């Protein structure tokens, strides 16, 4: 499962940042301990490559945070670079989450290896499933990822009754749920956000999800509404795949 769109979005947002030159300089300084005062040289650097290097050299986000801070301390214009460092962590935190969930292209994480091999996503996925109870507090640095999830929920709930969306998602993941049932406790256990997370873990491609949603919507009590819910969910969720 590759989130090329989200990766490109993050890289784009760094490129467009008003502080981009400082961000690039700081990443260069953090990776190679080399400082460049040459504006043209810094302009020529590609954010994509810099981010790739940073993630390769610092696979641990906390260690990256500490390293960035200690690098900034060595500079004379700390104030300006503190903001750049904070922006780097905000953006990269998001990428680290994507990486942990196996959503970054293998070729991005391993630039020196052959891009034909797509098996990397399997190993990173098993790392993600080993998450412990300590990980239940959401990724405190991954603001962009969390904001995107809130937007996803809002997009779905704006265009279709949230309960229709929920019943469809639940039925796709567990068993066919009917509103005529007396026992709604199963549906009360999960909120829409929980169900969306489970969808990400269960369906590797948007095509697989589309097929399954279509199948399931036809079996539900109100197939027309379920069909609409399926369309709304797919449109909102596509950018995440």
């Amino acid at each position, binding site marked *: 499962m590759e989130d090329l769109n989200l990766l490109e979005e993050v890289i784009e947002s760094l490129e467009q940042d008003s502080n981009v030159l400082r961000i690039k300089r700081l990443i260069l300084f953090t990776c190679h301990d080399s400082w460049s005062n040459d504006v043209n040289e810094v302009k020529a650097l590609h954010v994509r490559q810099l981010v790739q290097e940073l993630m390769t050299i610092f696979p641990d986000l906390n260690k990256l945070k500490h390293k960035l801070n200690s690098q900034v*301390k060595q500079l004379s214009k700390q104030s300006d670079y503190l*903001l750049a460092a904070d922006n780097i962590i905000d953006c990269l935190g998001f990428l680290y989450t994507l990486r942990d969930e196996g959503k970054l292209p293998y070729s991005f994480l391993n630039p020196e290896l052959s891009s034909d091999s797509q098996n990397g996503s399997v190993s990173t996925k098993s790392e993600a499933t080993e998450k412990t109870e300590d990980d239940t507090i959401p990724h405190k640095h991954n603001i962009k990822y969390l904001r995107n999830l809130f937007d996803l929920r809002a997009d779905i709930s704006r265009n279709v009754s949230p309960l229709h969306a*929920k019943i469809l998602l639940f039925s796709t993941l567990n068993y066919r749920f009917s509103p005529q049932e007396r026992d709604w406790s199963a549906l009360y256990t999960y909120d*829409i956000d929980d169900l969306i997370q489970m969808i990400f873990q269960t369906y590797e491609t948007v095509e697989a999800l589309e097929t399954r949603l279509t199948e399931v919507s036809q079996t539900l009590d109100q197939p027309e509404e379920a069909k609409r819910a399926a369309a709304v969910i797919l449109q909102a969720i596509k950018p995440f795949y």
Partner: protein
Amino acid sequence: MSAEKLLKEYASGRRDFAGLNLANANLFNSDLIGVNLTKADLRRTNLVFAFLNKVTFNHANLSGAKLGGATLNQAIMMSANLSEADLHGAMLQRVNLFGANLSLANLMDANLSEADLRSVNLRGANLRGAILSATLMREERGYPPTNLSGANLRKADLRGANLSGADLAGVDLSSANLSEATFSRVNLQGANLSGAIASGTIFTEANLSNANLTEANLKGANLTKADLKNANLRLANLFGANLTKANMSMTTLSNAGLIQAILNGSDLSRSLLDKANLSQASLVDAYLVRANLDGADLSEAILTRAEMSGASTIGTIFSGATMPDGKSHT
């Protein structure tokens, strides 16, 4: 009136059903768009998936009613009684619930964006995962403030909402998104905001005493004159936050990020700031008596006229800081 009769009359064009008794009726998936049900008795009525856009329910009794998945967009429900009603996954965009009673109601995953929730009673309500973006809950003179005490707002979306003066004592707002919302003068005593996103949120004069704000993101938040006594802000991100004159006596701020934060005139007596990052923070006139600053980073911080008697500073970094006497630390 029976459900069948109601639907028949609706089909023939009747819309005014004010004062009607429809208690326990089964109106599952019914189309009742635009009806007037002012003061109607709808206790325990089944309105699951019903279409109730623009319906008027003023002063209606909907206690225990089943409204799961119902579409109530733009409905007018002023002073309605919805206590213990089930609104699971319902659509309530731009609904007017002024003065309504929703105590113990189930609003899980409901969409209430832009709803008017002024003077609403939501005590103990379940709002887990609910969308409350741009809702209005601002206190109105002459009316009791909106009351959410003890409500469950886990993962709720409150972006851009206005809750000034509301009562949220003991609420669970963990992992909720409060960015750019207004919480001025709100009572959040003992509330759980662990992991919440509150960047740019306004908390001026809010009561956050004993609140749990561990790992919350409060980047650029405005906490001027807020009461944070005994609150827990361990590992919170307060980059550039404004804490002018805030009361942080006995507050836990261990490992918190306070880079470029403004703490002028704040009370930090007996607070825990061990390993906190206060680089470039402004602590002019701050009261740090008996504060614990062990291992904290105060490089380039401004401590002019700060009171630091009894403060513990083992391993504290002061390089480039402006000390209380106005002199620069080498």
